[in-house]
């Protein structure tokens, strides 16, 4: 871990100012990812701006929907009664990730901004374009069992590791941010980016912008939803494939449906065309399979992660079945519904 200046911000303006005026300055809140990466010398900030004392931890009503402050902890969101009642897919996804201890510390804003778990990104002794642009991608042709099958580039095949963001993608949340050029709102789908030629950039956020809140839409799909996560052990592991699915049914006919995948791309992965195949169709396995087939038809697996294509296909089908049946996946009973 390198040496850094420390600034405790008392207001949002002070925080933005402190980041703008420091060399390679970074905001820090929960610290669960940043401190981890600093110990590996992957992140070497010259200044840390402590934003934990900013008044951004509230979860509040706004136009019939919820606004989640950037500093609301993952645990606070997951166990918030309003979230549990109205956006249970979000609660479930958060509880599928990390651990009790980490969720108590990690914040909503930090979760949005968490970085990939790619082995090469984490290991200074290896090439990684995301960590050190131009050094090459170790994962291509290397150990890439956990890597992306969608939206990769020849520079990077890393995945975004968040569970929470997968649910936010399915819910079509928006992210409210502010910076020197003022406040703006970014749809979740546009918040994270694909690696392309600049894998070092995870998001469309500028370095001097700060996340203020995640704004949920009014519709939370509390009746038909699931978060299904498949991983190498039954808890405390990142997703090989995860699916957040939400649905609205009219009898047995699908009136609205969205699903997003985690663990398969540099961002929560959605396929609007595939979702379109569900609309107006009966909520049957055949319908779900057609949508899943459409999604995976665009997969580009690498040397060790070909299994993710079939796993993603099956996981989509099962998740849509769970959502349609109103039998969401439990995050404590590990039997898959």
């Amino acid at each position, binding site marked *: *871990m390198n*040496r*850094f*200046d*420390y*600034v*405790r*911000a*008392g207001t949002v303006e*002070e925080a933005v*100012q*402190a980041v703008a005026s*420091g060399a390679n300055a970074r905001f*820090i809140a*929960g*610290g*669960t990812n940043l*401190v*981890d990466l600093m*110990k*590996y010398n992957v992140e070497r900030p010259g*200044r*840390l701006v*402590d934003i*934990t*004392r900013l008044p951004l931890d509230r979860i509040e009503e706004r136009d019939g929907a919820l606004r989640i402050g950037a500093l609301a902890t993952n*645990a606070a969101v997951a*166990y918030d009664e309003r979230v549990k009642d109205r956006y249970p897919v979000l609660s479930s996804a958060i509880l599928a990730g*990390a*651990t*009790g*201890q*980490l969720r*108590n*510390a990690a914040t909503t804003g930090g979760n949005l901004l968490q970085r990939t778990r790619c082995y090469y990104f984490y290991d200074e002794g290896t090439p990684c374009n995301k960590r050190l642009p131009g050094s090459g991608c170790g994962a291509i042709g290397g150990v890439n069992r956990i890597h992306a099958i969608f939206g990769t580039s020849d520079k990077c095949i890393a995945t975004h590791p968040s569970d929470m963001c997968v649910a936010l993608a399915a819910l079509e949340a928006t992210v409210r941010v502010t910076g020197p050029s003022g406040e703006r709102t970014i749809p979740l789908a546009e918040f994270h980016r694909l690696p392309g030629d600049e894998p070092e950039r995870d998001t469309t956020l500028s370095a001097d912008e700060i996340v203020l809140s995640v704004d949920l839409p009014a519709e939370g799909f509390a009746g038909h939803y699931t978060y299904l996560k498949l991983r190498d052990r*039954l*808890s*405390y592991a990142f997703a090989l494939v995860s699916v957040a699915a939400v649905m609205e049914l009219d009898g047995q006919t699908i009136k609205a449906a969205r699903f997003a995948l985690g663990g398969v791309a540099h961002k929560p992965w959605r396929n609007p065309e595939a979702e379109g195949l569900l609309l107006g169709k009966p909520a049957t396995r055949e319908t779900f399979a057609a949508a899943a087939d459409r999604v995976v038809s665009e997969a580009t697996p690498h040397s060790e992660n070909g299994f993710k294509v079939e796993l993603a296909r099956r996981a989509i089908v099962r998740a849509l079945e769970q959502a349609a049946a109103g039998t969401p996946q439990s*995050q*404590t*009973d*590990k039997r898959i519904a």
Partner: protein
Amino acid sequence: MLIESGSPIAADTKVEIGLTINGEARRLQVAPWTTLLDLLREQLDLTGTKKGCDHGQCGACTVLVNGTRVNSCLALAVMKDGAEITTVEGLAKLSGGNGLHPLQEAFVEHDAFQCGYCTPGQLCSAAGVLAEGHARTRDEIREAMSGNICRCGAYTNIVDAIEDVIQSGAQG
């Protein structure tokens, strides 16, 4: 030096923070890069809190910060200025007794550890689980405790111990 909002503190400066550790209010000088875990272990000789991975991947460093369980290895001490910290050394005080916390007693009774290195983290985590109140069944306890790895494999005994305490109604 004291922390003033908005004013940068240079990397090589030690700053004064206040922490209440196991009930005792303390003024401490810390460098910005010192984690809560290293502060406890290296400066305060509170070595009950363990370093197993230093990256939030094992749970051995779990302590209670303002009553909530967190990984102390990922918390910068300077950011916890003003907080109340409970470590395994102070767990018994939480239950108001002079002897052992009910969880500590249950761990001994159920042989819920072998080498003992993950044990302080398991205990603090379990105390956090009791306070959170979301786990009652064995499935729920297992999931809630999954952030605490025990390489000796005492898991079933740990769950037995926690279940025992939950059922007896004792609280942390």
